[in-house]
């Protein structure tokens, strides 16, 4: 018993990780707290300057016609919708780009709908909102390619995301009718924007919490999961033991009971 634990101990001197991995992680962490943050703010300001005044004006018009009822004419918020100061272009791109905004009805949670605007219109509104106050910008393409560290991304995903979205990204229930949506087929850009902006009741994963590289890892992991069909066959929705149990009762036992009836039926 005792000797057993001591052999285990040797195997576990470093806890769950290899010491080199820790160093690598610390480096990434430092990057996230320092350099990456600077990088991020510069990209944000660059974005604002690039957006032309014409685009901002166009965006303001679309905003006034479609969004102002709830968010107010100056986007400062009303009792029906929050202020949009500082939410940034990323938030607009996510909310409108996934069809969540404009809301169809007031409910526990805005639902995904078919898009109501072209990407150009969304970009205009994003430019307008970004012009009001600095906020997270639309992410850089280099974080969205899905070529980062899949295994590390998986670990980050399980620690920070799987509790709500499920390990297979199948989604899950929250309180009072809210839910974490399925991540299957969601564009990398929208996943990144959701992490940065924390839409609805999702927490914000700022760059000081998950660095852009961490986010790229998570996106790579999700892409990896999406790209590969389950090696075992049909995944039954990735819902785990509940769908497996229903399947064996209905189809497994159902088929076999069918066979028993055939066995005991008398041929003509």
């Amino acid at each position, binding site marked *: 018993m005792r000797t057993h634990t001591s052999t285990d101990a040797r195997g576990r001197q470093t806890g769950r*990780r290899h010491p080199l991995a820790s160093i690598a992680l610390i480096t990434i962490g430092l990057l996230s707290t320092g350099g990456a943050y600077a990088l991020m703010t510069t990209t944000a300001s660059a974005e604002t300057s690039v957006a032309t005044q014409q685009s901002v004006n166009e965006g303001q018009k679309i905003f006034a016609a479609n969004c102002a009822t709830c968010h107010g004419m100056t986007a400062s918020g009303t009792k029906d919708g929050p202020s949009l100061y500082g939410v940034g272009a990323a938030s607009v791109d996510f909310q409108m780009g996934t069809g969540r905004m404009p809301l169809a009805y007031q409910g526990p949670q805005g639902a995904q709908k078919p898009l109501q605007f072209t990407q150009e219109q969304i970009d205009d509104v994003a430019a307008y909102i970004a012009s009001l106050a600095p906020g997270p910008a639309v992410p850089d393409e280099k974080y969205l390619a899905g070529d980062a560290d899949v295994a590390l991304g998986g670990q980050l995903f399980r620690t920070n995301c*799987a509790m709500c979205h499920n390990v297979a990204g199948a989604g899950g229930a929250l309180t009072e009718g809210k839910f974490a949506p399925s991540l299957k087929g969601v564009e990398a850009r929208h996943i990144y924007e959701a992490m940065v902006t924390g839409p609805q009741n999702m927490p914000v994963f700022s760059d000081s919490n998950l660095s852009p590289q961490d986010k790229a890892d998570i996106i790579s992991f999700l892409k990896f999961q999406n790209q590969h069909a389950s090696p075992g066959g049909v995944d039954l929705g990735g819902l785990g033991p509940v769908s497996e149990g229903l399947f064996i009762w209905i189809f497994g036992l159902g088929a076999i009971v069918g066979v028993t009836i055939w066995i005991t039926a008398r041929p003509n």
Partner: protein
Amino acid sequence: MTTAQDTTTTKSPVAAPTRGSRFTGAVANYLDERTSISGITKELGRKIFPDHWSFMLGEVALYSFIAILLSGTFLTFFFEPTMTQVHYEGSYVGLKGIEMSAAYASTLDISFDIRGGLLMRQVHHWAALLFVAAIGLHMLRVFFNGSFKKPRELNWVIGFVLFILAMGEGFTGYSLPDDLLSGNGLRIIDGMVKGIPLAGTWISYLLFGGEFPGTAIVPRLYSLHILLLPAILVAALGLHLLLMVINKHTQYAGPGRTNDNVVGVPIMPNFAAKAGGFFFVVFGVIVLISSFFTINPIWNYGPYDPSPISAGTQPDWYIGFADGGLRLVPPGLEFVLWGHTWSFNIILPLIVLGLFIVLVAIYPFLEAWITGDKREHHITERPRNAPTRTAIGAAGVTFYAVLWAAAASDILATHFHLTIEAVTHSLQALLILGPIIAYLIAKRVCLALQKKDREIALHGYESGRMIRLPGGEYHEVHQPLDDYERWRLVDYVDYKPLMIRPDARGRISPVQRVRAVLSRWFFEDRISPATRAELESGEGHH
């Protein structure tokens, strides 16, 4: 009867012994001279088994168990039941370089680096789910048929033990891969054990070999999973089958069937061919499911780590009722009394589930005591002919089903766009009301069906053909039953409620009174089978 065989016997006339038959004869002789096997063959070879689809459910369980044993043996060749930490260097990219236990790493290797390993894992797991499901359905069949009555009460209990063992096997197996799902399952077990008054802390400490999760639980569960539990299971299974042979199988009421005979097909060759063939079919269906449907994709869950958790963390279906019990506990049931913590939010479900399970186990004895019937019964009852028992069964099934549904409350909420709070509250109400409603409905349905049977036995089927009588009255012609069909409908035991009678000393004990009340509850509402006298007196009407 004898006419049917002629065509077949003429095709295979008994010829002079061929080489093959001489060889068979020699082998048989060799064996018999050393084992007396001819006696056993003579006794059992032509034993009769009644033929009904619902009598094959136990076989499904047996055959899935064989599939489990075969695939499980394959898995033991590769599985490494230790929690030593290793770095994964196998071929699954999603976990490359991640630190994990050897148990989890070897399960990944079985899945991704050994040809057919994933298939065997899936066969093992699907067969396990089917095993417990088949046992459950078999138990329901036996219950609703009243096939647990004397002389089969003990075999019911053995079957019940098998059910518990199967769940134990299932849970220990579920925990072995040491992935995030099973680790959190073990964490729930640890939390439940700690909630047991007095000894909980120590039981958990001893079980896990220290604090949760420790490094001992996987090898310990492995010993239980592949050695102790299967050994007990096989022994109990042998006993179960032995008693079945001794008691002989029950049969449905029918013409020529009596309480003193068993009508069906002989083991050699007909039953053996059907049952043997059925084994291959069950095994084949399991392998077919395993080739096309993923089960427990452990690679998604990642290695166990005490901090993460996945939405939709659920146990396998057969443990669901216990998880549901934990979810449906009313809020606030934890108190400090006499300097100790009483976690009724754990103890209460344990007590309720424990009572439920004990009731299932002892039901045959309860019913036997209430009816006072000590005779042997070999005719299976149709559920409708025992309305109160069927109603009790329906209530029990509903109770179990609500607990089971509760284990998926979060998935119910997301898939039906409900709030999790509403689902929980509804299921809490349903846990109490559901069984009552199910009881009342089932009882009424049984009585109505019995009435219909009586009607049909006396007046025949409605033919749907209308005729007009000379007086102008319209009348539907009833198709009368032949004696064979009628017998199926009228051959059942008709109990009357117990009459309290004083014992030898002229007293009526309180126990007798309770029994009389229960007996009245059981048999007050009843429909007696139709009689010949009724048929004859009633024939004038139609």
